[in-house]
Structures are given as structure tokens and as C-alpha cells.
């Protein structure tokens, strides 16, 4: 497998390639060894990130392994010592010719109307290695063309050459084997099962790897010709994994995103969100000019007016100014805004997280590992957070590969089963509110009594695995919004005691959130993780004089009339903050709401002033992924109308207020960042722009993280169902909703219950279940879901149909529900 990197000191295996003596690595496939030695062998089915299958025979070459030359598929053949290989010989050429003639026998040759034309391996190989003629005069195979196999992908079976790439990807990489070869012989076709579409989060990858035009992406069909596309490398910003991409534009409009093979991160794969959400930048709803509220309505205005109005609203007592958001921004813009808010205005009420994650000190302070280290063969991976497939799909692909192919051991400590559960060696089912005590018991070695839903033998087993001599990596985050973040923090405290040398990978939501935390868009910190007081005083005009609020506290303060001006940096607290009642109360009392965004959301639609910002693909900058890896974000198109990059807006706004931020170009801004944050200066910035994986930003942090005694487990209640709330990949988030192809992918909100509980509650014949919480009741649709543990109820957040935030309140440590069939229960009478 190519995922196993060739180690440095390989003893070369000598072989002869077209008469020249060369060397291969141990176990290397001939096709790869030839490539490394400068000889490209044509291929269709072979893909370096998947197992070889030898389906297409395009890679036949003449090989003499000692028994005379014979044609062999080079993608299936590991190099053996002294093998003689001829890639240019007559027999090889004849074989290539023959294979192409066969492959083209049934191919419709509709290249003029095919999206793949111009970048098609079949076209290219036919030109380079084919005869240019066919002897096949019979009628070709016909199929209805194309058929949609999912909302995003269309399949033209006539064009398919049956290379097995898409189907292998679906089962081997994505673990969504929803497409398959159907029928046999000349009738073989790729297809789905009737009414079971290929709705994989990774479906777009099959379009990219299909070596012909059989699979096409609905959003890109007939949009452009590949030779007309203008391309640049960048980083996907749909989640925190930082997958590397190529952005392609036609006539100043983004039309396609392709995955780039980054060894450190995404191995060429992308989630469909990473791939298709560029559509939002082309949305007709983009804010293209500054808006100001006038007579209850947002009206276009000039930048100057908007800036003056904003400056007036911000030039007040810094304790009455707050800012929420900033994860959408580039690292440079994050720094600029941190400087404006904290250095110029002097407020510390700044938070890029929206009450759905963990304290910033933990994310910043826990020793970080890398994806490659966590996924190294033989490691132990502990998942104590949300389902990686929903939050960072690219990371999910890497974790799954590590466990399935490379023998890593997965231990899951989560309130519901995740997409990785079936590969877990051990799964600790922690009922909401118990994870802190579970980890505490493990750390104290108290392994003989059950803790909550976790049985003593499971504790014993976990302890044994975690305290062995294998390296432990902890993928952590907020697994459940319906229980207090306190429990997750306690669990991390326990893990620190149990495995002192474990490495950590934070699994947060919101693209560049790690950049935001590092650049100080969080209370109590300045760029580089410096603490407010003392840090940076000599480099910035000033620093906040007080310890600020996080989003939760900002909203509470605002609800009490303590905040006059609120800045939203691409955030949507009304739509996204777990306690919607609190967010609503806060918004009712804000005097001036300044939104800096490229698209209006529920919150920014209520702004007093809207400053139009450039989005993804429209500005240059830097991305910081969950490992702390810095990679480039690059502009390929110009921002629409008068929209500007966020760092420009920050500088102009500062100018309008008075002090200058001290840069006029991105280069100057970067120099200033490097001068201010020593760890940023340690990074090789040329490496960020280089073709490799990007350097790690790793400030020296030997923080003593303080973990108090873990909170007691909440008592069991007669309202016997504990609520689990987390996020799905497709939801009502602003970017997805403005991407035409993604907007309808969010499924309806339904309550999910374990199949057993459905029997227990006698719900089998019903459509709805009654949910009681406090004085209120709801009628909700439900489904059986084996991922849900007994006595818990899972409802994903931000889906159409029901806003689960109605059940959440910032004040509750866990959320207990009573579930019943429609009738009023007897004990109430």
C-alpha cells in the first residue's frame, strides 16, 4: 500500500528499466518504481491512494523475471531483484494498442459534449498509445444517459470503462459502498440499488478519479472547458482539517474545486462540503456594498458612511463593546481584527467560539499531535468528542484508514455510537454527564465499580490499553451540546493524569477556528496564546484592562443591557448559539450591531451596519488546521462589488476610529504578525507557499493546565431520557444554505432512539413521540437508530423541521427528557 511511506534507508532493489539499471524500494509496485525513475506507464484503474486491482490492463508491460519476457500488469507487480522491464517494446505497444481498442469498442466517443474532454485519461491515452482506428463496426452498448446516482453526481454508463475506481473508493476509502458493479460480462455497469442513492459525504471524489467522463458533478456539468479554467492551489475551509485543494475559475467565477494530494492531511480526498461549497461565493445573495439601517431597513451606502457610523458606535467604553465570530477569517484577518478589538478598542469581550466547544485554554494548551502521528501504525486513538465524519470528514478518512489498514487501535468514549464505532476495539458508552467521572475513575485506578453506564470490566480493559506502552492520541471535542462543557473538560483532566504523554487533536467546528484562537479572538488571550496582561504591551497601542467574556457571557451581559455595540465576524448567534432564547434576549438589547460578512444570516440580517467582506477564494491569507499546520488560502476571483478582505476592513475601521493598525499590504501585515508573535516568526513562511504540506505553527507552551475536581454525575431523574445534541455535516449553516447544490441535503430533524427503547415506550406503530421538558411538551417524529444508546435521545442540531435548541438552556448541566406516547401518563392524573 502506498500509504505506507517508503522508509528512508531502503535497500534498493536493482532492476533494469528499458535497458538502464535503476532501483526500486522494498515492496514497491512496478508502476510506481517506473514513475519514480522517469517512465510513466499509462493506467486507468490504478490509483496510488487505493489498493491495486488490475482491472483495466492498460498498464501491461513486458517483464522478464528470469523465465523469459511476458506481459504483466505493472500495477499488480512488486519489483523483484534484477527484473527486466520493457515499456517501449513492440509487444508492450501492441498490448497497449489492443487494450485501448477493447476499451473503446463500447465507448460512445461523445467527447465534444463531455465534461471530461480535455482532461480525460482515456482521451490522452488513446492519443498517446492507441491505434487511432477501430475495427469494431457493430452497434455499441446503449444505456439511458446520464442517470443521477445522488444529488451531486450523475452517471453515464456508456462512457464507463469499468476500472473499479469509483466503486473501490466507495467501499475502501469512504466506507459507503452504495455504488457497485451490477450484472456481468458485457452488461456490467456501475449502479446504485433502486432508491438507495449514492449519498456519501465523499461522493465528489469519484468524479475526480473517474478516468473517463462517466461520472460528472451536477454543479459543474457544462459549466466550463478544462482548458479555459484558471486554477490556483489553496486550502479548503469547510472544516478544520485543512484539506488541500485547487480552486478553478472561469470568467472570474469559481466553478470547481479539486482535491490535492497532501501527505500530511487529506491524501487527495475531499468531503463534498469542501468540494462544492464554493457555490456560496457565487450566490446572488452576496452582500456587495455596505449597508446601513435606515428607517428599519438595510439600505446601501458608501464605505465612508458605513465606516464613520461603525467608528462612532465603537468609540465607547470598551467594556460595552463585544465581538463574536472570526473563524471564517484568514489568519491575517484574525490578527488584524484581534488588534483592532483588543489593541485599539481595548475590549476583551471577544470570542470566535459559539458556546458549542471547549474552553480555549484547553484547546490552546494541550500538547498537540499531528494527524500522521495519531494515525501511525500500532497507535492507540481515543475518540472523546463528536463524530469525526460529521465534523471533519477528511480526518475521518484518515482515522478509519489507520484503524482498518494500519492496525491502530480505536477506543471510543462517547455518548452515542459514531461512524467509527464498528472499528473500535473498545467502546465506552458514557451517558450524558458521566464522562468526567469515567475518566477520573480510570486515572485513579478505581476499576472495580461501574461508573454510570460504563461497566467495571470495560474500565479495566480501557485502563490496560491506555497505560500500556503504545503511544496514545486523543481526538477530543464537544460530543454533546445538551450537557455542560464542564464534563468534557473534566474528562480531559482525567486523561492528562492517566496518560501524561498523550498527544491531542482538537475536533472543533468552524473552519479556521484554530487560527482564531491562536490570534487571540477569544477572551483572555492575545496572539500567540499570550495572556492579556503583560503580553504584547510594548507592541500594541494597548491591551485590554479587564478579563473578557466568552460568547455565553457576552450574550448574558447583552441581555442585561451591559453591551451596546456587538460586532459579528461572520457569526450567526441567533442561528447557531445553543441557547437560542438567550441569544434572542441579547439581540433585543444591543444598540448597534455591526456585521462583517459576505452573506447575510439570521443574525446579520438584523444588523445596524453591514460591512461586505470577501469570502473564500476571493482573498489571500493563511489557514491554520487542527494540527496547527499553516497552509495558504489564495484568491482566484475578485470579491463582488465593493466587498473587501476582512483585514482591509479592520485597517480602515481603525483609521476611522483614530489609531492606525500599521500596515497597508498583506506583506506588511505579515511582517507585523511575525514581529509580534515570536512563534510565527519561527515558521518558515516560504514553506507555506511551497508545494509541500505546510509547516506546523507550534508555540512553546508548557502551561500548567488547571483541572479542578470533576463534577459529580447528575442524579438519575424520572425524566429518564438524556438528550444528546450534535451537528451533522449537512445542516442549515449559512455557507451550505447558499450553495445551491448543498442547500437541500440537510435531512429533517427527527428524534433518534435506540430500537429497544422504541419497544419499551410502545412506539412501534406510531409516527410521533411526545417529549416533555419542564412545563412544555413537543410532538416529534422519531426513528430507530442503533447508534443511540438506551435511555438517551439524539437530535442533531440545526436541521429543518425542529430547532432542537428549544430544548437547550445554557444553565442546565444535562438535559433530561420524558418521552411518552400521546396519552397523558397515569401518574399525572
Amino acid at each position, binding site marked *: 500500500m502506498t500509504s505506507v511511506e517508503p522508509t528512508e534507508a531502503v535497500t534498493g532493489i536493482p532492476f533494469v528499466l528499458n535497458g538502464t539499471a535503476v532501483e526500486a524500494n522494498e515492496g514497491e509496485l512496478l508502476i510506481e518504481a517506473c514513475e519514480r525513475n522517469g517512465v510513466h506507464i499509462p493506467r486507468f484503474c490504478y490509483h496510488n491512494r487505493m489498493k491495486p486491482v488490475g482491472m483495466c490492463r492498460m498498464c501491461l508491460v513486458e517483464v522478464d523475471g528470469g523465465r523469459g519476457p511476458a506481459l504483466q500488469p505493472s500495477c499488480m507487480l512488486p519489483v523483484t531483484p534484477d527484473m527486466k522491464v520493457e515499456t517501449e517494446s513492440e509487444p508492450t505497444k501492441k498490448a497497449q494498442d489492443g487494450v485501448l481498442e477493447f476499451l473503446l469498442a463500447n465507448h460512445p466517443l461523445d467527447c465534444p459534449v463531455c465534461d471530461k474532454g480535455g482532461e480525460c485519461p482515456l482521451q490522452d491515452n488513446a492519443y498517446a498509445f492507441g491505434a487511432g482506428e477501430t475495427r469494431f463496426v457493430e452497434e455499441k452498448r446503449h444505456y439511458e444517459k446520464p442517470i443521477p446516482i445522488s444529488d451531486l453526481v450523475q452517471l453515464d454508463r456508456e462512457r464507463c470503462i469499468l476500472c473499479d475506481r469509483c466503486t473501490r473508493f466507495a467501499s475502501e476509502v469512504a466506507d459507503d459502498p452504495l455504488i457497485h458493479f*451490477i450484472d456481468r460480462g458485457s452488461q456490467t455497469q456501475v449502479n446504485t440499488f433502486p432508491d438507495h442513492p449514492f449519498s456519501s459525504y465523499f461522493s465528489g471524489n469519484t468524479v475526480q478519479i473517474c478516468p473517463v467522463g462517466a461520472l460528472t458533478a451536477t454543479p459543474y456539468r457544462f459549466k466550463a472547458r478544462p482548458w479555459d479554467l484558471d486554477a490556483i492551489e489553496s486550502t479548503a475551509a469547510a472544516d478544520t482539517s485543512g484539506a488541500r485543494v485547487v480552486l478553478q475559475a472561469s470568467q472570474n467565477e469559481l466553478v470547481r474545486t479539486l482535491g490535492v494530494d497532501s501527505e500530511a492531511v487529506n491524501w487527495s480526498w475531499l468531503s463534498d462540503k469542501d468540494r462544492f461549497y464554493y457555490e456560496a461565493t457565487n450566490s446572488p445573495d452576496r452582500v456587495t456594498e455596505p449597508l446601513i439601517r435606515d428607517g428599519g431597513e438595510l439600505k446601501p451606502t458608501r464605505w465612508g458612511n458605513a465606516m464613520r457610523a461603525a467608528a462612532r458606535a465603537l468609540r465607547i467604553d470598551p467594556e460595552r463593546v463585544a465581538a463574536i465570530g472570526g473563524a471564517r477569517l484568514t489568519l491575517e484577518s484574525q490578527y488584524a481584527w484581534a488588534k483592532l478589538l483588543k489593541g485599539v478598542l481595548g475590549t476583551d469581550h471577544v470570542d470566535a467560539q459559539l458556546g458549542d466547544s471547549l474552553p480555549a485554554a484547553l484547546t490552546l494548551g494541550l500538547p498537540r499531535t499531528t494527524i500522521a502521528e495519531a494515525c501511525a501504525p500500532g497507535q492507540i486513538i481515543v475518540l472523546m468528542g463528536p463524530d469525526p465524519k460529521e465534523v471533519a470528514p477528511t480526518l475521518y478518512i484518515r482515522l478509519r484508514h489507520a484503524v482498518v489498514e494500519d492496525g491502530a487501535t480505536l477506543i471510543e468514549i462517547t455518548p452515542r455510537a459514531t461512524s467509527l464505532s464498528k472499528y473500535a*476495539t473498545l467502546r465506552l458508552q458514557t451517558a450524558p454527564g458521566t464522562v468526567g467521572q469515567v475518566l477520573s475513575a480510570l486515572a485513579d485506578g478505581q476499576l472495580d465499580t461501574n461508573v454510570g453506564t460504563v461497566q467495571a470490566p470495560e474500565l479495566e480493559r480501557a485502563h490496560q490499553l491506555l497505560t500500556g506502552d503504545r503511544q496514545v492520541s486523543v481526538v477530543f471535542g464537544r460530543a454533546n451540546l445538551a450537557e455542560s462543557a464542564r464534563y468534557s473538560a473534566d474528562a480531559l483532566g482525567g486523561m492528562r493524569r492517566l496518560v501524561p504523554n498523550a498527544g491531542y487533536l482538537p475536533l472543533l467546528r468552524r473552519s479556521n477556528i484554530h487560527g482564531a484562537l491562536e490570534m487571540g479572538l477569544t477572551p483572555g488571550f492575545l496572539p500567540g496564546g499570550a495572556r492579556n496582561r503583560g503580553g504584547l504591551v510594548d507592541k500594541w497601542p494597548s491591551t485590554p484592562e479587564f478579563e473578557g467574556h466568552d460568547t455565553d457571557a457576552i450574550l448574558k451581559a447583552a441581555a442585561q443591557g451591559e453591551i451596546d455595540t456587538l460586532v459579528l465576524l461572520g457569526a450567526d448567534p441567533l442561528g447557531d448559539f445553543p441557547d437560542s432564547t438567550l441569544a434572542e434576549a441579547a439581540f433585543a438589547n444591543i444598540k448597534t450591531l455591526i456585521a462583517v460578512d459576505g452573506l447575510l444570516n439570521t443574525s446579520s440580517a438584523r444588523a445596524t451596519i453591514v460591512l461586505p467582506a470577501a469570502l473564500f477564494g476571493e482573498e489571500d491569507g493563511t489557514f491554520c488546521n487542527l494540527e496547527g499546520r499553516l497552509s495558504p488560502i489564495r484568491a482566484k476571483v475578485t470579491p463582488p462589488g465593493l466587498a473587501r478582505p476582512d483585514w482591509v476592513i479592520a485597517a480602515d475601521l481603525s483609521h476611522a476610529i483614530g489609531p492606525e493598525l500599521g500596515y497597508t499590504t498583506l506583506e506588511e501585515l505579515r511582517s507585523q504578525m511575525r514581529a509580534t508573535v515570536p512563534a510565527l516568526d519561527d515558521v518558515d513562511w516560504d514553506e507555506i507557499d511551497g508545494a509541500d504540506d505546510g509547516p506546523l505553527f507550534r508555540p512553546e507552551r508548557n502551561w500548567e493546565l488547571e483541572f479542578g475536581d470533576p463534577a459529580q454525575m447528575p442524579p438519575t431523574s424520572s425524566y429518564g431520557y438524556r438528550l444528546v445534541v450534535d451537528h451533522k455535516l449537512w445542516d442549515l449553516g449559512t455557507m451550505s444554505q447558499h450553495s445551491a447544490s448543498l442547500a437541500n441535503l440537510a435531512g429533517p430533524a427527527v428524534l433518534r432512539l435506540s430500537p429497544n427503547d422504541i419497544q419499551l415506550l410502545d412506539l412501534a406503530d406510531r409516527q410521533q413521540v411526545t417529549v416533555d421538558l419542564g412545563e412544555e411538551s413537543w410532538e416529534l417524529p422519531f426513528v430507530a437508530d442503533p447508534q443511540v444508546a438506551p435511555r438517551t435521545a439524539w437530535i442533531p442540531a440545526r436541521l429543518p423541521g425542529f430547532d432542537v435548541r428549544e430544548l437547550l438552556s445554557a444553565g442546565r448541566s444535562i438535559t433530561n427528557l420524558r418521552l411518552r406516547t400521546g396519552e397523558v401518563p397515569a401518574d399525572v392524573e
Partner: protein
Amino acid sequence: MSRLDASNVLLAREIIARYPRPKSAMIPLLHLSQQQNGHVTNEAMEHIAELIGVTPAEVLGTCSFYEMFKREPVGRYMVNICTNISCQLLGGEELLHHAEETLGIKPGGTTEDGLFTLEDVECIAACTEAPCLQINYRYENRVSLGRFDEIIAEVRGGKRADVPTHGTLARIRQHIDPDRLAGIEPPEVAGVPPWFASRQDEAKEETA
């Protein structure tokens, strides 16, 4: 009705239990469902997928690979006439034409009474007995035109108890108590994916 019925679900579970991995029971379960319904329905494939933990597409992939799994209703009796070389030389084609006329259907078609489906097949490995045919996969050797009419009459007259009705291709059952089977090795674990093997190792450690 098209999913496996209750008694067949019990049988299915028994069959699944015989394999180290449930997925291996796919083909026996396809047989079971064809035996139940005469052909393999979409619902049955979905049901099998649920039972063995794969996607319906994977079941369809396997099912459609084998021609003897029928995904559309067929007659109670499949009449498969060989027209490959040996049979052709000894009158296979004539036999097929005769069958077409007698039954009034083309290959692939089913008689109106739903009794016979005619198929034109390649060598069925009985060349020494050419021309030959199969009726529900039971051989009839050296079939003359007259013999063909007799066979059809026998079947219509209910005189062919040896021919099962369509769907029953194989009976993969094992009602013998495994303890009583001498000398049968447990399935070895070679070739299982590492995560599966490691889980098994760990399970062993745990019980040790």
C-alpha cells in the same frame, strides 16, 4: 411478503451463524429468498443487506452476477435448452425452435399460464448427452422433439415429482449439531482484516 418470512428469518440467522463473518452468508440467503418467492425481489435484497450488515447495492452486485438468481418473476419451470456447439451439431437449435413453437414463447418468455420460462443457454457440461436441456436445473439427456413433448406433458400432468419448483437451486442447511461433527476444523482467521483480527486477539486476551 417479499422480505424473508418469519420462519426463513430464523433459518437465515442459523445460516449466518455458520460463517465467521455475516457477509459470507450472502449467497445462501439469496438462494433462500429465491426459494421463498421464486425470484429475488428488491425487498428481499434489502432485507438480506440488513441481516448481514452490508448495503443493498452490495447484495445486488452479487445477485446480478449470477444468472440463476432471477430478479424478475419466472415460470414455475425453467426450460434451459443448450445450443452450444455439441448440442447444436446434434439438433439443439431444432429442439429450441420446436420448444418455441410448442410453448408459444421466445427464449426469455414465460407461458401465459405461468408454468414455463424458456431459456437458450450455453454449454451445460453434458456434451456427451447432446442435445440436452435442463428443467429447473434437472438434466434431460438426448432429447428428441417427441421426448420434449412428453416431458412437457409429464410436468403439466404433475408426474415429475423429481423436479422441484423453481427457486430451489441449493439447500444450504446444516441441521446437524456442530458438536457431533467429527474432525471439522473451526474456520481459520487467515486473511481477515487487521482490525478484525486485533479485535479477536483482544477478545481472546480478555477471556484468557
